[in-house]
């Protein structure tokens, strides 16, 4: 491996020895592709003509106030319905470049599964998606979308039957299949080079948003706010602002039914250092190191680990992390629909909810929110919850 994949004391490549050659091949392909003008041109073309980049930056007309302006980075408008498509197109191209014929992926809410399925269809690669059986049940529309695009969805019945177990199963598949298979990990977690690579493929969101806000406001935002499950949409929008000292970076974790209990997914706020899915990071776990089950109203945030770079940004104090409970997220979800005519994903509603809290102070502020996905997938669940 050319790099150790460390973010401070976090990161690394904690995988069975058998997988090391697969990670080394991927790291080499990624670094080569980054320097390859042809690769970058093809990716740029796909992002523009297929996925719909750049996505707009929308100023809320009714939420916020004259003084506190709320801007939404509209990843909900990206093809596939969420930011996941950005990096999946890039990894799909990498898979082709490495000569792989098969894609595997894990998915929680199903958004990464949908993105991988569309890449599989687009690039003509056989695609298998591992999804916790519990998530299959609560995200049935996304399961159908994946199958419609030709992917096979495998319900994972081990453990908590959610995202964590789907990652375990995808890793197991990959240890036997890496010769012809690329594992498209869906977030900035997992072993090196995934956290670095996924960040680089997702930072286009922050790059665009930074240019867009400078154009409309003539200055940088006071805060950039994003929800954090594994953390790819947050890292993606944070990265180009990390060097801007005056810009506060705020990650919003799923506080579920409350941070005082165990039914949440607030890994950074309530977790401790540990090693899961190939990386040293922060985890929700018991005193023996058994990883505990997380909870969130949103399947995409229901993960007891977090990308190692978030653990690092927290450690060095560059980003701040807060919690948003299920009910507050649901309230924000409804409010955005009523006031702005935008139906966002439950995940993104967590970020919006925190922004609305900040906006109550009515200070002269610009708040930039990553609206990471649209809410179509959450319609059935929302209808039940709002009865």
């Amino acid at each position, binding site marked *: *491996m050319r790099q*150790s994949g460390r973010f401070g004391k976090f990161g*690394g*490549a*904690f*995988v*069975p*020895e*058998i*997988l*090391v*050659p697969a990670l*080394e091949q991927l790291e080499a392909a990624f670094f080569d592709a980054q320097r390859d003008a042809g690769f970058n041109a093809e990716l740029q073309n796909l992002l523009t003509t297929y996925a719909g980049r750049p996505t707009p930056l929308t100023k809320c007309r009714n939420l916020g106030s004259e003084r506190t302006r709320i801007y939404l980075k509209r990843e909900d408008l990206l093809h596939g319905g969420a930011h996941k498509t950005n990096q999946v197109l890039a990894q799909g191209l990498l898979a082709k470049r490495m000569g792989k014929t098969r894609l595997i992926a894990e998915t929680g809410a199903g958004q990464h599964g949908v993105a991988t399925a569309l890449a599989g269809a687009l690039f003509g690669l056989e695609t298998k998606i591992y999804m916790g059986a519990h998530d299959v049940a609560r995200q049935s529309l996304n399961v159908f979308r994946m199958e419609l695009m030709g992917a096979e969805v495998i319900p994972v019945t*081990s*453990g908590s039957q959610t995202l*964590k*177990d789907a990652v*375990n199963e995808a*890793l*197991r598949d990959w*240890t*036997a*299949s*890496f*010769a012809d298979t690329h594992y498209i990990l869906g977030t900035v977690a997992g072993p090196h080079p995934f956290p670095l690579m996924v960040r680089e493929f997702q930072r286009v969101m922050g790059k665009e948003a930074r240019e867009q806000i400078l154009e409309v406001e003539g200055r940088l935002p006071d805060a950039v706010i994003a929800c954090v499950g594994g953390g790819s949409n947050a890292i993606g929008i944070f990265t180009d602002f990390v060097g801007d000292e005056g810009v506060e970076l705020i990650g919003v974790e799923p506080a579920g039914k409350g941070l005082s209990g165990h039914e949440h997914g607030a890994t950074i706020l309530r977790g*401790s*250092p*540990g*090693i*899961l*899915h*190939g990386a*040293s990071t922060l*985890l929700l*776990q018991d*005193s*023996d*190191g*058994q*990883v*505990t089950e997380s909870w969130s109203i949103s399947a995409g945030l229901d993960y007891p680990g977090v990308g190692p770079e978030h653990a690092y940004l927290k450690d060095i104090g560059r980003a701040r992390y807060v919690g948003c409970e299920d009910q507050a997220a649901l309230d924000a979800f409804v409010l955005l629909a009523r006031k702005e005519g935008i139906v966002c994903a439950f995940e993104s509603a967590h970020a919006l909810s925190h922004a609305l809290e900040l906006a109550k102070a009515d200070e002269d502020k610009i708040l930039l929110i990553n609206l990471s996905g649209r809410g179509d997938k959450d319609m059935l669940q929302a209808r039940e919850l709002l009865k």
Partner: protein
Amino acid sequence: MSRYAEMFQRLAQRNEAAFGAFLMLGDPDPLTSAAHLDACANGGADMIEVGIPFSDPIADGPVIQAASVRALAAGARVDDAFARIAELRAKHPAIPIGILTYANLLMARGEARFMADAKAAGTDSILIADVPSLEAEPYAKWAKEADLDLVMIAATNTAPDKLATIARLSSGYTYCVARAGVTGVRDALELDHASLFAGLAEAGAPPPVLGFGISTPEHVRAAVVSGVAGVISGSAIVRLVTEEDSTAKIEAFVREMKAATAR
């Protein structure tokens, strides 16, 4: 001399390869687990490998995953695992005992303390399934401080520079993987290990012991012919754990497998 070195020397004189039996500690409950460990020793296992159950065992196939789930559901704690090892050690003073587990359990307890507790219980070696050669350096230091052998995994796709790292950092034996993938029972064994064994020998790595998919006496015989110092059978033993008369069945299976280790 370490228990592994003594064992390999003794077996070489008898012209036999080592047979290692694997069980998950606390599976399905503490008492039965202790009886099964005894059955392995009584059946003639030369070395015993014990898993300490982890919630997210990414290197394990369905059989050993299920064993971890059963043990954790029965309330298995890391402290219990060390207590079980201490009991086994008291009954069988000479047999090498190795731990197979995952890095997070070490980190949660503190790696140095985990290794010291393992040693105090009577453990000879530790293999951490998700610590590859890339990450092994600090673990080798902790193991050395605790006077434990750090056992590492080598596969047919492991590059020469990694084999050199394994040779430098590991001791006891080298856990060679019989095929790509996770642990589990297989009908046929892939045996394309000549170059791996040669590479390990050239690097000066500890003796090669083959695991992953060793489930019949035929597998054992084929492995022995290929030049291994030993074999480890895991899933094939663990799948007997939930059967009726499991203790007798495990002892009989181990005896049958051990009988196939003659060169």
